[in-house]
């Protein structure tokens, strides 16, 4: 196998998959850091986002134009879910909210299955030939995925570092009591967090859908690698989630060298166990909750 073969058949798919995990993992890490619970409905929220995009595409939109709209709609849905379910539980121990999010996951999946059925489908049909960039083969959808991920990550980082409310989110993650003493409105930060998280899950669902297929269990299968990525990078760290996502994605694609292909999905689990054993706070020193 030549180096180019390695890049084209293992590294590029790994990076594309890893970028998708990264976008999902950022959402998980934000919920963990700011709202302080493990959000198990994350994957199924991604499924919903993917199907909202599908509905828009079916209605005649171009997939990549549908993406921002699907992100916005899913952001609204995420805020609604928080208001309807999690908000009522915030005075209870966090484990109650964690369990409730599992219930929300099942509910979202059922809604998707009721509305769109259980058969896999795709945004676009037909085979797309990759373009050759100095020997590296990239399909347009892969190129767009990577571009979108870079834009999302850079945009989010700028928002968190530069804007007043981005800083408020970081303050809430860093020291919630002091943030409240400084006059930061917890409700607003919570809403903003869900808006961002909802948008991110929709993006991850859509990008998985456009690179593979759209089906009702897609998000559920994303959950483990996304959590692995978030924990690997260090809980509460946006950059850690990106790093973790890329590592998990690439590791899954490379795992076929040592494991039968059907064990691909177990790679994330193995990585998660490994990191918890040797470096429980993750690569970038995340929070201990």
């Amino acid at each position, binding site marked *: 196998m030549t180096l180019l073969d390695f890049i084209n058949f293992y590294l590029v798919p790994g990076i594309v998959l890893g970028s998708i995990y990264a976008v999902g993992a950022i959402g998980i890490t934000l919920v963990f850091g700011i709202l302080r619970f493990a959000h198990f409905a994350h994957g199924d929220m991604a499924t919903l986002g993917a199907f909202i995009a599908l509905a828009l595409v079916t209605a005649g939109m171009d997939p990549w134009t549908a993406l921002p709209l699907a992100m916005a709609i899913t952001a609204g849905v995420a805020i609604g879910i928080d208001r309807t379910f999690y908000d009522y539980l915030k005075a209870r121990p966090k484990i109650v909210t964690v369990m409730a999010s599992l219930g929300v996951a099942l509910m979202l999946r059922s809604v998707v299955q009721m509305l769109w059925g259980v058969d896999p489908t795709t945004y676009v049909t037909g085979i797309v030939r990759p373009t050759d960039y100095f020997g590296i083969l990239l399909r347009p959808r892969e190129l767009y995925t990577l571009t979108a991920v870079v834009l999302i990550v850079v945009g989010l980082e700028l928002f968190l570092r530069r804007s*007043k409310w981005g*800083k*408020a989110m*970081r*303050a809430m*993650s*860093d*020291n919630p*009591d*002091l*943030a*409240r*003493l*400084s*006059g*930061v*409105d917890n409700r607003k930060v919570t809403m903003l967090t869900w808006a961002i998280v909802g948008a991110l899950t929709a993006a991850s669902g859509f990008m998985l859908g456009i690179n593979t297929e759209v089906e009702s269990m897609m998000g559920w299968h994303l959950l483990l690698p996304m959590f692995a990525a978030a924990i690997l990078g260090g809980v509460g760290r946006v950059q850690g989630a990106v790093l973790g996502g890329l590592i998990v994605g690439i590791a899954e694609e490379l795992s076929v060298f040592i494991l039968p292909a059907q064990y691909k999905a177990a790679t994330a689990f193995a990585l998660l166990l490994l990191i918890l054993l040797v470096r429980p706070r993750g690569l970038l020193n995340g929070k201990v909750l």
Partner: protein
Amino acid sequence: MPLLDMKAVRGGYGDADILQGVSITVAEKEIVVIVGPNGAGKSTAMKAVFGLLNVRGGSIVFDGEDITGWAPNRIVQRGICYVPQVDNVFREMTVHENFEMGGFLRKGDLSAAYERVYELFPDLKAKRRNLAGDLSGGQRQMVAMGRALMLDPKLLLLDEPTAGLSPKYMEQIFQITRDVRDAGVSILLVEQHAKQALAFCDRGYVLATGANRHEGTGQALLADREVAEMFLGG
């Protein structure tokens, strides 16, 4: 009329009353210190002023207005800022961002407020881009005070600002506290270093088991035999 008038306040975190009738006043431009043994309720008394406690009796009047039972963010806007005893900075944010968060509720241009804070804490100017969590204990305490001063409060509540600091830093913090007072801010502080604090304050209170035990000018309390025996090691 004093700026802060806390009268016979009772209350606690849950159902039990930790404070069993605490009365404290702070006049304009006064430095008032609370001392007392560990667990006496010093921090709790301060939290009561800042609306972090279930107050079940007594009243807290600030600047002519009854603020008993107000939420902290309303109290902040009314002109009281609070520096907690522990976890009083955003460790993963820069010094400057800590100040920005302190001024979160302020609208408009904050440059005068930043200038004032950096003037009070010149050491922090060079460190403005460092993470607060990476600073020394004394510098972190300065960040905490600076954050609280960004809103330009009338009354500053400081809970053990010198805990764990070297004598050099303790002197520096006391000096800054005086500077802040000279700039027109009244100060209520809890201190573990009773002797030094009583020597430097205008007036002091000794709390024990959630109630007032002694009060008077710093000098009078230092001279009091009973106070000396109780808290100052004879």
